[in-house]
């Protein structure tokens, strides 16, 4: 029982009462503080590189979300209509291809995609850094979008099992409107936003992992210099790795810890950005799950 003035916590501003909003602001605040620190203590060329890497990583992740949503939506609907129209052979073929894609470990699939991209870059087909970023995102989304496909199919199947769908179709409301507007937009927006946040986190993680793997050198043909700078590729640079290894110095000389924030700023900066962004993304997604009981 809430009674006025007793035993109640002080009212929190409405905006911060939501966990997901709180973590979005926390992320923005954290990045802003880091930016200020870098401005003061990181050397200008390294700062420029960090800025570019952060921007590229965020842009690529947003693109992965956009591509995955589009691909997931299209494939989810395609599978639904093929099933409904009784096109069993095509449905089987599409399901087979999608399952083949699903069976491939994401990291291996993306690495293979990057091999193709490197080839295109070497052949001068992909010249513009923006186009390269878009291509990188497209490759990542190819191995992520099935999560969206599954969600779309699950939502449609759930509403198909209720009178909801039949009652609308009996009123002559077109099937495409029932699915796209009534089911997906009006009744699944929270689920889709949650999935988009999860895909964003996944994209950051996969991208950093792949860029790091490529940058430490899987072959002489592929290297981080082929691709636009990202947080992963920057982390794999020799100077960043040295910065991270410098943490171990603290164990032998405790007074060294203060130097970490001035002399080894670049590597720590990148590592923090990756971890902090992933933690915030997780909490935003978690907040949405709790609020909408997903």
């Amino acid at each position, binding site marked *: *029982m*809430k*009674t006025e003035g007793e035993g109640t916590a002080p009212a929190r501003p409405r905006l911060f009462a939501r966990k997901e909003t709180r973590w979005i602001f926390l992320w923005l605040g954290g990045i802003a503080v880091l930016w200020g620190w870098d401005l003061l203590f990181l050397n200008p060329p390294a700062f420029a590189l960090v800025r570019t890497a952060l921007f590229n990583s965020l842009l690529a992740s947003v693109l992965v979300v956009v591509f995955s949503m589009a691909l997931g939506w299209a494939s989810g609907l395609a599978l639904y209509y093929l099933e*409904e129209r009784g096109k069993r052979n095509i449905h089987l073929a599409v399901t087979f291809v999608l399952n083949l894609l699903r069976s491939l470990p994401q990291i291996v699939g993306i690495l293979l995609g990057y091999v193709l991209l490197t080839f295109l870059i070497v052949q001068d087909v992909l010249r513009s850094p923006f186009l390269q970023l878009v291509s990188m995102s497209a490759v990542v989304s190819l191995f992520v979008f099935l999560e969206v496909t599954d969600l779309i199919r699950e939502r449609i199947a759930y509403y198909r099992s*209720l*009178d*909801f769908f*039949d*009652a*609308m*179709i*009996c*009123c*002559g*409301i*077109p*099937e495409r*409107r029932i699915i796209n*507007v*009534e089911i997906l937009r*009006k*009744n699944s927006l929270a689920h889709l936003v949650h999935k988009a946040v999860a895909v964003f986190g996944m994209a950051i993680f996969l991208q950093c992992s792949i860029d790091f793997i490529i940058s430490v050198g899987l072959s002489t043909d592929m290297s981080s210099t082929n691709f636009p700078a990202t947080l992963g590729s920057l982390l794999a640079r020799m100077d960043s790795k040295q910065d991270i290894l410098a943490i171990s110095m603290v164990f032998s000389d405790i007074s060294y810890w203060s130097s970490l924030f001035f002399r080894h700023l670049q590597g720590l900066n990148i590592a923090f950005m990756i971890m902090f962004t992933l933690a915030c993304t997780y909490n935003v997604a978690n907040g949405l799950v709790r609020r909408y009981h997903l």
Partner: protein
Amino acid sequence: MDGLSFDIRISADDKPLVSIRDFTLAQNQITLLLGESGIGKSLISRGVYGLLDPAELTVSVNNLPYPEYLLSQRVRGIQRAGFFVFQEPSSHLNPLVTLGDQLREGALAGASPGREVLRALWEGSAGQDLDSILAVYPKPYRPSGGEKQRILLGMALEKIDMLPPAKRAGPDELFVFDEPSGSLDNHYRDLFLTLLFDRFRRRPFTGLVITHDYSMISRIANSHSDLLDRVVFRELARRHGTLQVSDFQPGTYTGWVKSLLPLGALSQASRGQEPLLTIAPDVEVFGRRLVITKDPEGKVPTRLEVYPGSMVYVKAPSGTGKTTLVKRVMGLIHEGSIEAKLKNLQLTGATPRKFWQDRIWGKRMTMVFQHADEALNMQSTMRETLLGLPLRKPLDTDGIARLVGDLFDTAEAGEVLGKRVRFLSGGQKQRLNLLRSLALDTDVLILDEPLNGLDFDSATRVIAILDRKMKAGMGLLVISHNEEIFDALAGDTHTYYLHIRRDSDRPSY
């Protein structure tokens, strides 16, 4: 009036849900609380009984904060001496304990071991059925909703039997029955009322029966008329934006039922016309063979015909497959076989879905589903629901106002049009559910429990609209458990019966 009086306010997240100043239960009498579903009848009774969660809702009863009310002698006494039968039987039963053991838990441990009450409630079923059910751990699908409901009603009746002999009810002897007939057919509903009133005659107690089934009034008036002065009929309704309880005269309902005549001025004239919809008597769905007949015994299979301006009423006991039949007729189920003709269109099990989409759904035939909660989009506003209809002439503001005005008062319409459906009461949802299909003006309209959850006023309005639509030439096919109303509205000529055909049955045609 000698009674229990309550001033109850309930809100959630600062949104007021219920506020009622004078909710009175007459002591030593049975109060029949009527009203449309979702208006707050259950919430109020749970509040009185001390069953709401103060962590989720902000509640005050008689100006007492709820935690204090929960600790009061009144609540403790009511919970000790009375019984509360929940609307949703599954939520009352423990899935980890057999039904038999639950019947002997707590205060019921001292109840009669013979289970006479339950056996009486199982009248018509084999005794073995009851014994096998009592060994079951309740699950969502077993036993059936009706059986669970009868178990709970049996518990409450046993608790009444345990009351010490007295001429007057003690102040705490409050027995609440929340929608006791929600999962029962008319036979078991009448049986329950008989058992309840027999006990009340022998030993008075304070009772509250919450229902939106107005036909209970007729049953009480016809079969328990000696108790009419000890049953208080009250109706909960929202008037001018506030919730009010007022007395309801049983004669208002019984008189109205008596005055009902077959609807549709064209029904006589329509005999010379071709039927709008014809359904061959044999239908097979999900391996179940159904047969349509004109006689209640199911001996003479008959082709079901819906003429312009007529209402056809299909009757059958619960679980026979009435809803399945109409869904099959609507082309929503493709399994099995059916032979039907909609004007000049032949409809069989092989008719492709695209044909239904292009030629039938929303154009020549539509259907009102029985559960408005499932049939409507809870995230849409009422306005969006109506604007989304594929009408030849899209609705404008005036059109929506006219349409909504058929079933909503002007003030209420202004209040609810922009509201999301999930915030409407059950009765408002059902009215919207009906309006959506009525707006389409199809040749044939199928109605599955059209009066579900409606109060008396709304039910009379719905019937007036149906009459108007029939006069304009629409054909109606109705399935409903409100037999006394639809028997009168359809008349014998347009009443059909649905039966399950057993293997031993021989076709007689």
